């Protein structure tokens, strides 16, 4: 199977500057240190926080031991973190039964015991 990029990078400290916003066309790009706007290619990007409450658009459970350092089962979701920006993210829940489509989410830091997990998401407090 595939070896994924395990560089730990995104923690709660990075939330104020998680995304890049293009001053030319207004498109959001993830991550904020991207080398150019994914829509128009401009390099005039401003580092900005998520402009919306993140929303869970899809989710599955990873059953296989396919990512070194990531012990299954793990819930993986597609989270919309800005208009048009849907990223795969680890969902910090015990199982899928706690999730519904299009539910608002919040970003939390990595499990302190596991530095490789970076930023994770969980259902927004009011929804839990």
């Amino acid at each position, binding site marked *: *199977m*595939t*070896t*994924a*990029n*395990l*560089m*730990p*990078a*995104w923690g709660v400290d990075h939330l104020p500057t998680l995304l890049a916003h293009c001053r030319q066309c207004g498109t959001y790009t*993830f*991550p904020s*240190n*991207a*080398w150019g706007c*994914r*829509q128009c290619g401009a390099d005039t990007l401003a580092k900005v926080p998520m402009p919306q409450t993140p929303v869970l658009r*899809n*989710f*599955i*459970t*990873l*059953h*296989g031991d*396919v*990512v070194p*350092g*990531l012990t299954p089962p*793990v819930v*993986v979701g*597609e*989270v919309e*973190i800005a208009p*048009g920006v849907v*990223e*795969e*993210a*680890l969902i910090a829940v015990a199982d899928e039964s706690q999730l519904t489509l299009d539910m608002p989410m919040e970003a939390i830091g990595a499990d302190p015991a596991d530095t*490789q*997990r*970076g*930023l994770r998401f969980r259902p927004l407090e009011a929804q839990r």
Partner: protein
Amino acid sequence: MSRLLQERAVHVVGIGMHPYQFPSETPYVHLGLTAIREALKDAGLQWPQVQAAFVGTAAIGMAAGRVMLRHLGSTGLSVTQVENASASGSSAFRLACQAVASGEHEIVLTVGVDKTGHARRASGSDGLSTLSPTSNLPVAKFALLARRYLRDGGLDVEALARVAVKNHGNASLNPYAQFRKPRTLEQVLASPKVAGELTVQQCCPRGEGAAAVIVASAAAIARLGLARSRSPRVIASVSTSEKLGRGDVPPIVDMVRESSLAALEQAGIAASDLNMVELHDAFSIEEIVYGEAIGVSQPGEGAHDLARGDTAIGGRCAVNASGGLIGMGHPIGPTGIGQIAEITRQMRSEATGRQHPNTRLAMAHMIGLGSVAIAHVLQKTD
């Protein structure tokens, strides 16, 4: 390319394979030469007649071509190595077609050969980090796509598993396939879960192997007295890459739709004219959504068409008669060239045991990590 292939005909005159297999100690040179020698013999050509070679490989390393080809004799031919992830072989084949269609060469070899385990991905060196350690993991991406498709269509997991049943069944009849065992629906569903609804038997294996195809101009076929009726013509070749998504359609699906539509337009045919499609079913869900994107099935009808047998050998349009990536295997470099070999074999009515009747128009469609798409259309020659 759109006019070139119409102005100067390019034909597949020879095919050869080394069976796809699980990782072994066999040197890649042996794998590649086995396929090339079989293709030369099939075409009735001698090595010195080949003017250029395009070598598709993703994991062997730099300069794999001449190291292998010198064992056939040092003729001084043009040698180019092509890496385009899973589409390496398809891209090599496209370049071979261009070399003939442009008039630069008359007889060109394209060979895909690969071993597992040595590939490094550029996405790990782009200086950026992803949000999730699964972000570059195809099985997670396609499990998410599968979940969405099943949910939107109100379908159950059997809809996906039927792809694997069909393709393992086809592969069991293909002597070049990595998997040679038919699987039942129960077996596919009971195999260990990998991600979401995808079980192990719905995922392509890792492996190695080789595939070779020789293309030639119509003039060369006439001059050398090659068997024209055994030489399908390449009538379209298209290469594209992913664009930003539009709304709810995943960008990779849009890419498949646009690339196949461009290939059909170039060929001057409709999707409904296709008798056969070989496509990138690294994961079962891909065959269903790409089949719809190409137009083999109407939107939302892919799973129903599969269940009805429309995409089986003998059905309306055989999809992955070779066994596809799930059954035949996916050694990366050879995969796209193996598709061309399968289509050629079928058009010659030489696919013993798995012959699809009356294959006249076929598409080979391949995806590469990134994502990129390569589409070719072949037409039977009378």
